[in-house]
């Protein structure tokens, strides 16, 4: 029982760090633009499909596939930004969200046209199986997920608080008109934030598909849902909240899957969100992204 708890907690922590990365990407866009990008997950899916296509055609190595996944996600993300978000900067948030839903459908149709099978194999991150530590099993993928989450969060924290780009991002979040008056090219900052978010999302996508070793068109919806869920649990709009939300989601899922069965896993996760939304603790108010 205790061993199960420890094992589940570790598995949940690893999956949770992938969720945290998904939520961090979501939060960057939401924190700066105050817009929900439903196409966030589908853009990641496009990146994963690009890498899958490469691996089917050329049997490329895993780091190259990571690069392709991130690049594909960034290009798809740029396409979303130009079509859905750049034109609606002053306009309605709903218009941008609905437009991003349209691109979601477009992405799903596009990948199924190019790669029509329902499921493709994705090369595993590591060929070897889990490492045994006494009675506990540690998957090396889990350690990589954890390490990636920690490194990316540290890099983002540094970027936002110490760099010139971070200064611009914080200024845009704080007072967009004043940022323009200070000479900051606000549309360019928004595009860069979007690309950065897509790159973080692409990394999360690669971590997930190379752990599960398969890709389906459902990955888009799955990523958007997990990212949104983790972001909302963590309290909308702060990076720290996104990380906490992601890890909490991973832990809740791992434990409920083990103790209540796989059918209960998502049920419990949504129940958690429902309870939090109904209860609305203080930290769930919208915060700034820094």
């Amino acid at each position, binding site marked *: 029982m205790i061993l199960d708890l420890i094992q589940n907690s570790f598995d949940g922590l690893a999956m949770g760090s992938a969720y945290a990365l998904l939520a961090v990407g979501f939060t960057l866009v939401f924190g700066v633009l105050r817009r929900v990008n439903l196409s966030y997950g589908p853009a990641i899916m496009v990146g994963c499909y690009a890498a899958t296509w490469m691996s089917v055609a050329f049997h490329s190595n895993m780091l190259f596939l990571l690069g392709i996944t991130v690049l594909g996600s960034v290009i798809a993300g740029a396409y979303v930004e130009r079509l859905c978000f750049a034109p609606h900067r002053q306009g309605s948030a709903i218009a941008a969200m609905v437009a991003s839903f349209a691109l979601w459908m477009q992405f799903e149709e596009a990948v199924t046209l190019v790669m029509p099978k329902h499921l493709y194999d994705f090369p595993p991150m590591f060929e070897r199986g889990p490492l045994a530590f006494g009675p506990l099993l540690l998957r090396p993928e889990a350690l990589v997920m954890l390490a990636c989450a920690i490194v990316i969060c540290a890099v983002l924290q540094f970027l936002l608080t110490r760099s010139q780009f971070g200064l611009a991002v*914080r200024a845009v979040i*704080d007072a967009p008109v004043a*940022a*323009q008056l*200070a*000479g*900051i090219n606000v549309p360019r900052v928004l595009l860069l934030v979007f690309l950065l978010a897509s790159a973080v999302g692409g990394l999360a996508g690669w971590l997930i598909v190379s752990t599960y070793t398969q890709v389906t068109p459902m990955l888009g919806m799955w990523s958007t849902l997990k990212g949104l869920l983790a972001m909302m649990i963590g309290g909308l709009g702060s990076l720290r909240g996104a990380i906490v939300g992601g890890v909490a989601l991973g832990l809740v899922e791992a434990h409920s899957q083990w103790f209540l069965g796989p059918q209960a896993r998502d049920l419990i996760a949504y129940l958690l969100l429902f309870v939090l939304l109904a209860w609305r603790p203080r930290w769930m108010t919208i915060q700034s992204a*820094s």
Partner: protein
Amino acid sequence: MSALLEIRDLVTAYGKIEALKGVNLEVQQGSITCLLGPNGAGKTTLMMTAAGILQPRSGSIRFAGAEIAGRPPHAIVAGGIALVPENRLVFPNMTVLDNLHAGAYQRKDDFASDIERLFIRFPRLKERSTQLAGTLSGGEQQMLAVARALMSRPKLLLMDEPSLGLAPLVVEEIFRIIVQLHGDGVSIFLVEQNAHMALKVAQHFYLMEQGKVTFSGTPGALAEDEVIRRAYLGSAKA
């Protein structure tokens, strides 16, 4: 003296409603020029259009000979215009120092000495340099907004109602700073409700009513009570 800023037939509209209905005015190099007028006359709209935040529907804005109407705000800042906006608009969740750094966003050269000099001019900002700007008093925020605008080393400083909502002593301080900046060679285009103070410092003033310039002259050209009446209430025929 030559015209640093030259605005011709400028029209800016919100949807179908024209806030500026063909504005003509000039700001001379090295002057303090003041724009007076009642609420809703279009003064802030004119400032926001000159700074590039609002897009004009037609007309021309020439700055130092170059057309800038419709250009994006960051390009206008790069050209040498900085706006101290109405209600200050500092970055409330950033420190005073970060606010100043944001003001220098486009500068590639070292601006540490600028901050030193601004801290001498605004000692209160130095005392509070690590405080969040949102925690400053109204007057301190106004100083910060001016200091932030100066960080871009503008040739022309646009100021939109810098005395709004401030205590009389702070208003005097603000106007003292305006005169100092003018002495340093910055041209200033000032929107004011406080006609009495504005007429003391300005070399030239314009009266704006309902989206049009209705009077232009030097501070002695119109009796002050007449100016104040029209600046607050608009002309009788309106």
